């Protein structure tokens, strides 16, 4: 058992260090430690125009624009599934603003099955301010998912503002010229793993006293173990599920053994 909210009154205990990251989706979660939902916002969002996925050698650039039907509808539609989930559900919040996030957090407070909230910061948002607003609105454990680019700089402030664990982290932002125009998306690729590992290692050395969750480029149990060796308490897997559906569950089984 791994405690992801060791510095908090309400616990978030997982049985396995392998989590399914936001964006991933699986029906088979007998071993997985926790499931992070797709990122939600208060109001529905249509998301980014096409293309949303652009392949590059050895990876993929993705821009979803946080397409989602809005938190109230997500809760309405998934409440039953969450109640029955064998692993805690962590509801991800996409960056829109601190006020919406506080409202959303309050709404989730008493939803059965929801074990925590994962905040998706981006460099444009003042992470500490947003964290304080959410912290004031809920007792649910809060995971702060930081951009790899500036995680090191803001990690300590996030802990001070109430984060219970840090997810390291959001994939690096990239660009490609698509039909003559700049197209921005985040990079998901096995080669992101060393970047995320480095950030985990550097932040572990800060000794912040809260669990770190590695995330980025994991495609095997060996990859997952590398993050645990670097100081992560758990890891999140996502894009590997695209090319090998069910891989997160298989990695969870292997890491357990």
């Amino acid at each position, binding site marked *: 058992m791994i405690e992801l909210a060791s510095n908090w009154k309400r616990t978030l205990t997982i049985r396995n260090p392998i989590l399914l990251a936001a*964006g*991933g*989706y699986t029906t088979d979660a007998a071993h997985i430690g926790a499931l992070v939902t797709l990122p939600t916002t208060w109001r529905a969002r*249509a*998301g980014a*125009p*096409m*293309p*949303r*996925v*652009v*392949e*590059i*050698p*050895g*990876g*993929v650039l*993705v821009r*979803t624009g946080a*397409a989602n039907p809005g938190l109230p509808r997500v809760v309405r539609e998934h409440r039953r599934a969450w109640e029955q989930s064998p692993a805690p559900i962590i509801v991800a919040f996409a960056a829109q603003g601190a006020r919406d996030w506080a409202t959303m957090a309050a709404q989730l407070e008493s939803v059965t099955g929801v074990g925590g909230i994962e905040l998706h910061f981006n460099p444009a948002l003042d992470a500490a301010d947003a964290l304080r607003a959410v912290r004031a609105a809920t007792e649910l454990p809060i995971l702060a998912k930081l951009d790899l680019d500036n995680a090191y700089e803001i990690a300590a402030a996030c802990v001070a503002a109430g984060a219970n664990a840090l997810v390291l982290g959001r994939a690096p932002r990239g660009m*490609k010229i*698509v*039909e003559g125009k700049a*197209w921005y998306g985040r990079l998901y*690729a*096995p080669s992101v793993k060393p970047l995320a590992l480095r950030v985990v290692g550097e932040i572990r050395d800060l000794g912040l006293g809260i669990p770190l969750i590695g995330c980025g480029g994991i*495609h095997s149990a060996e990859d997952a173990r590398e993050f645990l060796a670097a100081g992560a308490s758990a890891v999140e897997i996502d894009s590997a*599920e*695209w*090319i*090998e*559906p069910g891989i997160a569950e298989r990695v969870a089984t292997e890491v357990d053994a």
Partner: protein
Amino acid sequence: MKSYSCRVVENRNLWVDTQLVAFDAPDLSRALHPGQFALARAAPTFDPYLRRVLWLYASDGERVAFVFSACDPLAARTRVGDSLDLLAPLGNAINLDANARRVLLIGEGTRIVQLIALAHDAVAQAREVVLASSPVVGGGGHGVGVSPSPVADGGGYGVGVFPTHLLAPEIEYRTDDALSAELLVWADAIIASGSAELYRALASAIRAARYRLESGFARVIVDLPMPCGTGACYACAVETTRGAQLACVDGPAFDLVKFETRSAR
């Protein structure tokens, strides 16, 4: 949807920029129906990273053949004897209404290859089949989607006439006006594969020839990159009159009525 590891028994250029890859795989052959697709990966390499869409081309319960873009790296790298890792069946089979005696299949350029399995199936069900080749009208893009990466290139575009010796004799193959009033009035059901421009032209032509476009009459195949094939990645969203739908789980064929080609870009 299941995962299969299948040995390649054939891998060759079928026609223009269309590649054919075949497997001796009875299970897989029986699991797939026209309109459906498989997602292929040559593990363990991560380059190319994403799975490729293989469109069902022919299947006899033992052997199954798929088509995809001959420009895709997978075409050059795959050899007879290799094992490919396949996820299938994906997408919804195109089921023709029992009353649809006269079936019109319209393919734009090389996208016609996505309709061959359906044409043969319809013939086997003793329907009358016209396979009509449309010249390429879509401006440069690939179907209704944008394909900056080769992954979407399921079929691709091209000009020329599909080799008729590959077609059952019962299939009437036409290369004159695919959207002619004569054909549109004749048909009980239409399935088309091509660009958003073709689909817009088809909708107008049907309305002109038959006065109205009924739901259930015409279906169109959306050929987009489909990285996950299972609704998990939202890469293949298309705007329909019923809101956003996913080509992989709600399609890849959509009713032309529901399909707002305008906003699909």
